[in-house]
Structure formats: structure tokens, C-alpha cells
């Protein structure tokens, strides 16, 4: 594991927000793109934290502390990235959520932040949103994209139901599915041929580059 990731994992597990932010600043001296930061530092660190639990070196309580610290870092980073953005056109809309009972929402947060930094208007519903509430929200707001995250195999049984109902909404939003399981398994049997399966941050970044052409963003530093 990269030395900076090791230091970052240590700061997250200690709940030390300021130390963690210092490491982010050090990282950004080398690489300044959000997608690199999300991939190299955040994703790798959260994977390492999962590995530490699996090898019996930390408890779930420590994992929760790390997640909470990571949430702070993500929120702060995103606020810095968007504070100077001026949106020049009407923005396309994207809505994000974890499927029912799914509690792992860091990946979803990254995705929503990347959309917003590319000029989209987003709504992040986070973990544990029942399908009925989601359908109501989607009817009301009419998002162009509805992003779902699934990272626990047990929750796959619900995925098909979510995808089919969401793709049948009147204004026909595109459903995007991401999360750890998309990288590990072929989830196409749980989706339709219209569903976008996104295997990682780099693929998402590419998709955003190709599909945010109408979004004019004026970043003033």
C-alpha cells in the first residue's frame, strides 16, 4: 500500500480530521483531480479498512469512526471544489441513493460529488431509502439520471426490482448502477439493457466527460 494511504488510514481510524486533511493537501500537491483523489486515497483507504476488519485487526466500531471522519473529509473537499463554480446554463439533474437497507454510502457520495463538480444538479438520498419514497421523489423532481449503489451481495435481490420500476417512470430516466459488486460480478442479469453499469471512478469520469457537454461551468479560482 502507498505510504500516503497508510498515513491516511491511520488518521481516519484515529478520528483525526485535521491530520487527514493535511494528508489530502499533501496528496493534492502531486495530483489535483478529484477522481484521482477519490480513487487513490479514499477508495484505497476504505478498502484497506475493510481488509483490517477482515483480518481481525480492527472492530466495526473503529470502522464507523473512520467512516465518519472520511465523510468530513469528503464534504470539506467537495465544498472547496464547488465554492467557486458558477453555473452558466440550466443543469441536468441526477439523483443518488443506496438501495433499501444498504448502509455503505461513501461510494455514492463520491459519485454525487463528481457529478456536481461536472456541473450537474444532484440530490443525494443516502442510505436506506425505501422504493416507494424514491419513486415519489423521482416523479416530482424528474432527474435525468438515477444512480444506485449496491455493495453487499445480500441486497442484490432488490436490485432488479429497483431498476425495472425506475426505468418505467414516465420521463424515462437513465438508471446508473455502481458499487463494489459491479466491479466483482456481472450484474447485467439484475438490470436491463438500458442500465448503465459503472465499474469504477475512472469509468465514471470518462462517462461524465462524454455526457456533460451541454453543461457550461465557469470555475473562478
Amino acid at each position: 500500500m502507498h505510504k500516503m494511504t497508510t498515513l491516511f488510514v491511520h488518521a481516519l481510524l484515529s478520528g483525526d480530521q485535521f491530520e487527514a486533511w493535511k494528508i489530502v493537501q499533501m496528496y493534492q500537491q502531486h495530483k489535483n483531480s478529484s477522481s484521482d483523489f477519490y480513487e487513490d486515497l479514499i477508495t484505497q483507504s476504505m478498502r484497506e479498512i475493510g481488509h483490517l476488519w477482515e483480518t481481525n485487526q480492527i472492530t466495526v466500531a473503529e470502522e464507523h469512526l473512520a467512516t465518519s471522519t472520511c465523510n468530513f473529509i469528503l464534504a470539506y473537499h467537495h465544498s472547496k471544489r464547488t465554492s467557486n463554480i458558477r453555473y452558466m446554463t440550466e443543469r441536468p439533474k441526477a439523483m443518488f441513493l443506496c438501495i433499501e437497507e444498504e448502509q455503505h454510502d461513501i461510494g455514492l457520495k463520491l459519485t454525487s460529488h463528481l457529478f456536481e463538480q461536472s456541473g450537474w444538479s444532484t440530490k443525494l438520498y443516502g442510505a436506506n431509502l425505501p422504493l416507494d419514497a424514491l419513486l415519489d421523489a423521482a416523479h416530482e423532481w424528474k432527474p435525468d439520471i438515477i444512480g444506485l449503489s449496491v455493495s453487499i451481495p445480500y441486497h442484490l435481490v432488490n436490485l432488479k426490482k429497483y431498476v425495472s420500476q425506475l426505468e418505467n417512470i414516465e420521463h424515462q430516466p437513465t438508471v446508473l448502477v455502481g458499487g463494489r459488486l459491479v466491479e466483482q460480478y456481472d450484474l447485467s442479469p439484475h438490470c436491463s439493457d438500458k442500465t448503465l453499469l459503472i465499474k469504477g471512478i475512472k469509468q465514471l469520469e470518462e462517462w461524465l466527460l462524454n455526457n456533460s457537454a451541454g453543461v457550461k461551468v465557469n470555475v473562478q479560482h
Partner: protein
Amino acid sequence: MFNIKYIPVPYLIFDRSLKVIETSEDADQIFPPSLTVEDLIDEGSRNKFKHLLEGNERQECELVLKTEEVPMALFDCSFQWRDDACHMICIRKNSDIERLEELVKQHSKRLANTNFELLENKESLENSIMKIKRLSAPFIKISKTTGVVMLFGELDKSLIEVNQNVLSERAFKGEYEQILFDFNGIGEFEEGGIEAFCYLLQRLQVMGIDSSVIGLKPNQAFHFNRQGKELQASFKTNLHDVIHTYLSS
């Protein structure tokens, strides 16, 4: 064999093929009926469990197990092999984790409402202060061998620390023999400032450069005196007299 049925904790015994041999009544109530212990373990915990089973010594770990009530629940598990039977106790981690999860959720909600502008302003303010400090010790050449450092603001540790490398380098490269530190622009003395200043003077002296302190006010002289520092420097009253002495010599 000893009957484990009435042991008042979820207790299971399984063999090398992971087949469940015996269970306590508590285990029967909590877990769904299962042929193997593996059936009880959530997919995300199976590798961890199998890896720990390889050791013969007693193991303690957290595992996510399936229960009659919910498909995933966190347990503290202890297990140990005795001959070809593994004895396992599983204690549900209830309230502690739920409380933590609740706290994490609250943090997330609060984060959404945090005014990050405040933090950003604090950061930019700190950067500005450092810039001001860097500009608060200008080095002026007054003769081939003498330079003056005009100090401004509060004498604190950071004023000296952000400037000491630049000053030492400038004094060394310019082959100066004497540096005059003008305290006329200095207001308060902050903790650690005098120590840092003394360290800078020692550093200059090691480089063969003499230092003089100019324009110390009575209360500042008192500080130097009170701290008991023996400064490696001479003291002069004001810059005008010093320059006059140099020009006339």
C-alpha cells in the same frame, strides 16, 4: 458427552467439515436451523471466519451472522478447537453499535449543514498571517559588512521561524560580519519568541556573524532579563546612532 443445551448463551459445536453437531437452546432461538456453521455466516465474513479457523488456538473476532430476525447482525464470537470439534460462543453486539451508527448518522446530517466557508476563511487567514510574518523582517544592506533586519509586529516563535532560514542564508552569502536587529517596530513579546530569537543569534554566531539588538524598550528589556537569557549580542540604543558611528568610522 456433556450436554450444552442449557448453557445460557448461543453456543454451537461443529466438526472439521463445519457440520453443526450440537447447539444450546439460546442458539436455536437466535439462529435459523442450519446444517453447517457456514450457512449462518454472512458472505462478507466467511473468509475471515475460515482464515481464523485454520489456527488451533482460541480465536476471538467480530462476525456478521444471519439470525431468525435479520439477515445480517454483528456478533462477538469466540471459538476453539478441541480434538475435531470446534466450540463457538456468539454474543450479539447490540446497543453499542446501534448507538455508534446513530452518532455517525447524526454527524453526516450535521456535515450537510456545516458552513465550510468558516473553515476556509480560517485557512486563508492563517496563510495571510504567515505572509505578513514573512514580510515583517526585511533585510537591508547598509554597508559591505553590515545588514539591518527591521522586525515588525509581535515577537513570537513563528516570526523568527518563518524568517530565520532566509536571514541566515542572506547573511552568509553576502559575507556580512554584523547584523543589526531593529526592535523599534516590535510590540508585544509572545511566549517562545525570545527563545527562538536567541537560537537565531547563536546560529549566526556559529557562522561567524556578530549580532546587535537596537531599540529595545524598557519593558522588552525586562522580558529579556527576566527570562535570564544571556544573549550573544551587543545592545545599542537606536539605529540612527549606529549608522552615524559606521559612517564616521
